[in-house]
């Protein structure tokens, strides 16, 4: 990992609890600027909660989250919405909303109450739709879109927010192989071409290893380890975190580590 990259976001000593259960336990995590950080871990490890906490959807019991060295609790919700965008798991909107209306939602944090729509807003929406290739679909109702098209429309919405940081919570879970690739390639391009800081939660460890600059293993509400995928994709670590034996090979096409999980015996 590039030690010279500044940390866009710093999570310090974050503890989150629901009811009596501690979900995140005094967690520390720096998130480097302009890189793709992927959070991976077994079910229930707290990775989604961590992502949502970064976007301040939940208030922590203790700890601090810094955005560009500033405590995020100091920012208003719209102000924070202009800095960090979040695409949650299973987002939903009325089926008869059309793509353009959906993407326009992304401009909400930029709108003052009495001066609703400006040319910048129009431009941002157009750029977002062009960037995700949904321009041709702008009048289509989202209920009539395929899974892949719909996900691109949602990403367009987050793009229209024009944030430096984009968080995506399991964005490819329900997509088929081709669309998974399309979606993640799109995200990678946003990072490459526009320098956006990306924080992803991914279920599929191999996809995580392929796309991450900074791979983070989350286990039981704590960071088990974070760093280069090469460093983390080790059989012993995977066995410990994911409770699965794995054989590690190198992906012949992308040159990234790949794991093949198996059961002994």
């Amino acid at each position, binding site marked *: 990992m590039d030690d010279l990259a500044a940390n866009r976001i710093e999570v310090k000593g974050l503890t989150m609890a629901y009811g009596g259960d501690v979900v995140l336990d005094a967690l520390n995590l720096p998130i480097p600027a302009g890189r793709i950080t992927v959070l991976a871990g077994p079910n229930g490890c707290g990775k989604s909660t961590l992502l949502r906490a970064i*976007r301040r959807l939940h208030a922590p019991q203790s700890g601090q989250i810094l955005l560009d060295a500033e405590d995020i609790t100091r920012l208003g919700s719209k102000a924070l919405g202009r800095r960090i965008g979040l695409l*949650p798991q299973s987002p939903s*909107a009325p089926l008869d909303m*059309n793509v353009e209306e*959906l993407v326009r939602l992304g401009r909400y944090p930029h709108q003052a*109450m009495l001066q609703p729509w400006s040319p910048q807003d129009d431009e941002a929406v157009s750029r977002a739709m062009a960037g995700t290739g949904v321009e041709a679909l702008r009048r289509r109702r989202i*209920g*009539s879109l395929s899974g892949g098209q719909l996900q691109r429309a949602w990403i367009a919405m987050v793009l229209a927010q024009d944030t430096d940081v984009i968080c995506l919570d399991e964005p490819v879970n329900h997509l088929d192989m081709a669309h998974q690739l399309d979606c993640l390639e799109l995200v990678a391009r946003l990072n490459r071409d526009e320098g956006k800081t990306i924080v992803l939660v991914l279920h599929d460890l191999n996809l995580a290893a392929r796309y991450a600059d900074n791979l983070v293993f989350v286990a039981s509400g704590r960071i088990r380890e974070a760093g280069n995928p090469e460093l983390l994709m080790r059989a012993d670590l995977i066995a410990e975190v994911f409770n699965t034996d794995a054989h590690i090979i190198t992906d012949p096409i992308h040159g990234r580590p790949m794991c093949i999980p198996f059961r002994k015996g």
Partner: protein
Amino acid sequence: MSIAVTAPRYRSLVMPRSAIYGLLLALLALAWLASMTLGYRLYGLDQVWAALFANDGTEAATVIAGLRLPRALIAPLAGAALGVAGAMVQTLSRNRIASPDTLGLNAGASLAVVVATIVFGVQSLVGLSLAAAFGALATAVVVFGVAAGAGGLSPLKIVLVGVTFASLAHAAVEILLTSNEAQLQQLLFWLSGAFVDRPISLFFNGLPVVLVGAAIAFALASSLDAAQADDSTAAGLGVPLAAVRGAAFVSVSLLTGAAVSMAGPVAFVGLVVPHMARRLVGLQHRHQLTAAALTGAIYTTLADVAARFVIYPVEAPVGAITAVVGAIALLVLLRRRLA
């Protein structure tokens, strides 16, 4: 996203919005004129003009100014109020068959008015309007609370809760009314909606309440847009959901309360009108609310005119007409699984 997709691919009307608004305004003007001229007796436009601006005390002028004018003003105002309230309710509850009456708000408002009159002896129009608004607000809180607390807000279930609550409120109103024969006559119109035989003071009394409610609604327009998405997305965009919902509740209560205090509970207006509005101008609330106001006004005015002719020469209660139309609309919505 689990509902079967039967919604068509594109919005039906592809006229520019300005043309649509122009059309609606023209329709509203026509509807208003119809309301002034048509009825048990037909009057000409010249008589209307004379009655409004040069009242010479003739029978025609008296009828037009004294009877036709109040209802021609109250009907569109109530319709607009219910239309806007309905659009907000449908957005807030993410439920296309929700409306101020299917959620029991109208009935709660009626009950509050009856209680205020009988138990607390409130006489002033302002007091009754406030009572109605309070009743609508209290009902909204209760119904949303009950439906939310019990296993989640299934859209169908919340409507069932609302309708049941409405029947409960109606039963309570009936008991109160039949136990107070003296006030029965004057309060009978709280049991069903009607624009006829209302003093024009009700219009002037309701107007400021509707304007305040509408102002709040339009101020919330972009927040309501974002609130159409799921909670996480909306919160991620920076929408202060709790505050927006609270303000919207207040707006809905003011609008519903004003409509009920002017015309009693007029059924299903807030259910049907938002669907029409969305079909015309799309989902952005700036436009949805405007179209809902215009469409609502046209709808109730035309219903009021129809009420005069459906069983001519007797006048049918306008609430019955809107109920028939609205219930059929509800059936269509359920059939097409749009809810």
